[in-house]
């Protein structure tokens, strides 16, 4: 029983990190209707930029703020150079441009920062876990969890109550219709990419604190996909719930299934779950179901 509760709590905490990354996916999908496969690389860029500033002596909070500013600039730049020309093109083209961008960024990251693991020195969060009874919670996970919840509240309010948030959702739903009622698609996409870069930057900076930064942090961006699907591609609460569910599933499968299937069952179980899940609930729990007319 203790083992079960322990895995459960760990799962929820890891799930908080997943939720943070999943939020990035959902945000850009919700804003612009694009599945951004460069998410992992954006996370990496955020992590490395924060690390670089931290290493030259800038305080952590300040380096995160600098990362956010650089993120906005990069986001707008990327949108203006690559995606601006693709407004009105089929969605596959946009998707593949994000794939191309992911390779482009990955090559550049590896070129500049190398492939060795780099860690935040001195560590920002104390390594001492917080203990409640027999449960130990690592501080980094706790902070990521809190941040995920805060961002969730912030973005939910943004999409529900602000003019821009509604314009973004309108563009994601139907680009042509949004253009015809006077929403500037160029502005929406620029804002979407700026937001994506910003959320990925914060996520990356926190993730970098868990095990140090190397190129495999970028893969985490892909590993959260099951979480995104579970919640539905355009639901912000879905990202949070999906992230936590996948975190729990992963930890429980690691605890109980690993003895039967040694190896990487922990990493793969969410994907297997996702494939089966989609057979029954293809749009996740809260994703918009596309109603098509001829």
């Amino acid at each position, binding site marked *: 029983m203790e083992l079960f509760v322990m895995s459960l709590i760990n799962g929820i905490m890891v799930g908080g990190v997943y939720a943070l990354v999943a939020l990035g996916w959902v945000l850009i999908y919700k804003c612009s209707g694009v599945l951004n496969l460069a998410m992992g690389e954006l996370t990496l860029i955020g992590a490395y930029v924060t690390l670089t500033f931290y290493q030259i002596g800038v305080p952590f909070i300040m380096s995160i703020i600098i990362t956010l500013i650089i993120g906005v600039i990069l986001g707008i730049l990327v949108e203006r150079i690559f995606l601006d020309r693709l407004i009105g093109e089929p969605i596959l083209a946009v*998707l593949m441009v994000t794939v191309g961008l992911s*390779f482009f960024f990955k090559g*550049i990251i590896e070129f500049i920062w190398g492939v060795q693991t780099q860690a935040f020195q001195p560590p920002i969060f104390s390594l001492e876990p917080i203990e409640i009874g027999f449960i130990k919670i690592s501080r980094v996970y706790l902070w990521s969890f809190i941040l995920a919840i805060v961002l969730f509240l912030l973005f939910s309010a943004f999409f529900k109550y602000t003019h821009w948030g509604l314009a973004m959702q309108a563009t994601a739903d139907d680009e042509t219709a949004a253009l015809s009622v006077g929403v500037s698609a160029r502005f929406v996409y620029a804002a979407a990419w700026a937001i994506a870069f910003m959320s990925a930057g914060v996520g990356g900076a926190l993730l970098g604190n868990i095990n140090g930064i190397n190129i495999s942090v970028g893969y985490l961006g892909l590993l959260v996909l*099951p979480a995104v699907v579970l919640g539905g591609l355009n639901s912000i609460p879905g990202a949070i719930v999906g992230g936590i569910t996948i975190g729990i599933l992963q930890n429980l499968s690691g605890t109980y299934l690993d003895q039967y299937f040694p190896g990487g069952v922990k990493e793969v179980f969410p994907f297997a779950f996702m494939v089966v899940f989609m*057979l029954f609930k293809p749009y996740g729990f809260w994703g918009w179901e596309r109603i098509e007319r001829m």
Partner: protein
Amino acid sequence: MSNVWLPCGLYHQKYSEDHGWWQTPVIKGKMILLLVLVFIVFPFTLTGYWFGVANMIGYTAMGALGVQLLIGYAGLVTLGHAAFIAVGAYTSALMILHFPWPRFLIDWGLAYPISIIISGILAGIWSVLFGLPSAKVKGFYLILTTMAAQFITVDFLITQYISQIGGRGQAFSLPPGTIKIGPWIIDGELKTYLLMAVLLTLSVTVVANLLRSKVGRAWIAIRDNDIAAETIGINIIWYKLLNFFVAGFIAGLAGAFWISNTAALSPEHFPWFWSLWLVGVILIGGIGSIHGVIFGSIFMVIVMELIQYGVMLLSDVYPDLMIKFLYIKESVFGLVICVFLIFEPRGLSYRWWQIKNYFNLWPFSY
């Protein structure tokens, strides 16, 4: 209405002529010339390095053909095709190494050809398994299942279990002389080249003919509008799964060919990068065109060879560059895809089509 330009004075008088594959003498001549070039001229003129390049082009083209079927002809976007190639490669390698073949089959050199076919079928079935969600979802959600195929198959099943068979760690190596077709042992570059040429020609022929048939028309209808396709009585689930099967089958052939090319096999040959690479190939070649597959493969392989050559030239000046070649390759690949999608969204095959039409009408192009 025939789908090619007919020269002056040439008329179709029967429907069968109208549906013919090579409709004019010019096209017929061109295709025969191409076959002569591939099967007779190249084997005698190419040398070692160029055979390597040609084999790589053929392998890429076979993989990309399956991706083209899925994306270009049925609108099922896949980002996990390397998984099915891996299934083919591992099936073939395992059958050659561990299957208790009857003595006479090995003596007649039938073990490898049979394993090629079986690996095609297995890869096809595996592909259908991951295509099942396509019955319910499409678009982005389907992309996610195909990505799941990649991670489950290559990163989990193959890395953790299948490559442990035989107890020699990660990589399989096939002893010389085991890959044998009839009396010929596939060892030299020339023989792998010929094997590649035969497999590629066969799969292109089969696919091109499938696309002219009822099946191909059903796929194209599903791609263009699946709801409309359903209303005119096309069983879309069946045809989508059939598409997954054929694409997986060709991927299996490509995988089985790959082991004859390298004589070794490890999960690192089939990373997620390779799946994306294949999609990149068809985007550059042009979506919805078999020419596109071939053009895209040639373009990508040659560009990568050129980059490698350029890096080698520069490595005297900047020795670091050689170590970082892989990163440059990734970056350039990404940039090439972006540039093509932005400036040439219809790919190389569209250019080819334009050039061809120009000469068809030349010199009276009005």
